[in-house]
């Protein structure tokens, strides 16, 4: 197997593994209007955009970011998982800025289109006669 093919194979593995482990949050295309996007990556323009682009798109497409929606904690889990299993390096001082960016522009949009989960349930023992 050529070096190029190995690279492509590794790339596909990363993408597929990432997709397989994705949480079941819905993929949304009707993104909130966060302004201008980077023409090359499609990521929202921001002071930290280049940081995210530089650290994250070496292995996978920026679309893997932009089609997903997670909280800051959710994105941290993805980074940790990639570090543990996909050879992602230590992001060091860049990590908080990357997480801030992801949580700002790619946060869950909050509402389900057709039915949301029941939430804020106040559980109580029901004493039956």
């Amino acid at each position, binding site marked *: 197997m050529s070096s190029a093919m190995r690279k492509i194979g590794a790339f596909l593995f990363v993408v597929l593994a990432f997709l397989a482990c994705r949480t079941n949050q819905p993929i949304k295309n009707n993104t909130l209007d966060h302004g201008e996007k980077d023409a090359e990556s499609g990521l929202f323009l921001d002071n930290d955009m280049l940081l995210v682009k530089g650290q994250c798109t070496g292995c996978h497409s920026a679309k893997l970011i932009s089609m997903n929606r997670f909280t800051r904690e959710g994105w941290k889990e993805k980074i940790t998982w990639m570090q543990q299993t996909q050879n992602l390096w230590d992001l060091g001082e860049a990590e908080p800025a990357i997480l801030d960016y992801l949580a700002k522009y790619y946060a869950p949009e909050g509402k389900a289109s057709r039915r949301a989960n029941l939430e804020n349930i106040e559980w109580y023992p*029901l004493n039956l006669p």
Partner: protein
Amino acid sequence: MNSIWNRRGFLKKTTLATMAGVLGANIVFAKRMPKGVIPVGLSKQNLEEILPGKHPDLIILNNKPWNVQVPPHLLDDATTPGDKMFIRNNGIPPEEVNLDNWTLEIDGESVMNSKSYSLKELKTKFKQYSYHLTLECGGNGRAGYNPPASGNQWTEGAVSCGKWTGVRLKDVLQDAGIKADAVYMGYHAADNHLSGDESKEPISRGVPMAKALEDESLIAWALNDSDIPLMNGYPLRLVFGGWPASASGKWLERISIRNKEHDGAKMTGTSYRVPKYPVAPGQKVPLEDFKIIESMPVKSLITQPKTGAMIRKGEILNIGGHAWAGDLEVKNVSYSIDFGATWQNCELEAPVNRLAWQQWHAEVSFAKEGYYEVWAKATDINGTAQPMVIPGWNPKGYLNNSCHRIAVKITDS
């Protein structure tokens, strides 16, 4: 009248004294308190002092104008008590109600003789009737729509079925005389516009003559054999069961018999209207493609138990609630505990009278411990059922009649 707001929408001095007593301190800068704002410490436990005669566990969505909904488990009564009746105000209720001076005028292009009746005349001149009538806000369930629709974000609790007493609207209109070209009736009321502009009506809606002339269409002065609660229209209101409750004008002062579709406030534009055809979520709809909402769709509520009930494995859970279908009767209610995969029939009672909601009950057993949702689904006599998902999106978020769901947990021991 016990309104805490004066005519201009500011807090009355007496109210401020009550608030100070409750909070244990004088409210600093009380005179400058903005219109409609209530100090944080007063928000829930003192609701009754703010809204006389209302249950303290009602949920305030808006306090100017007042929009207050009822948690489903508080709607368990077959006949909704006044303290558990939702409030949907479009303006500021009248500050002063003088029963001796209150009159109802009948006018309009299609009235034969304009007339005026005192409350006493209404009560003595015409035969009195009582009906149990379902009133639901057209926007009940709006919070379920995505993209979000603007307006008060009602979830389930903008519905009621009280026993209303008064005279038939048709008896009064026929006493004044209805011309052959009559098309619609529109109401005018004593509430005030939020802006304080006295030339503007906050809301002036109505119904086509066919609905106005039904036996159950009332001019009412009593709810459950008592005065109507002041936030629900004291001393006089219209009641049209099964139609968006906004058609049932509160604080009723005047009825116009119109020779065209009534064009009062919130009759036109997109108010209480939906697209004539199904639209995609978020789609822009031209104004001319909207139609007025008439009969409300089939719907049901689980009012027993309250969501969140935890019972032990092997115990039988009694569930129950109400079902209604606008102008129609409900023919069936079923429940599911497996997210709609299978459905079981409930016992369904007949309505007390036409346009009253119907009670349903079932005994439910659960095979194993775990998290369950109980869903209820009503079907009307034409075979139309509630959707399990959110129904067709519409720009103003009306008519969400999706199945009501409660959470239940079955524990091991």
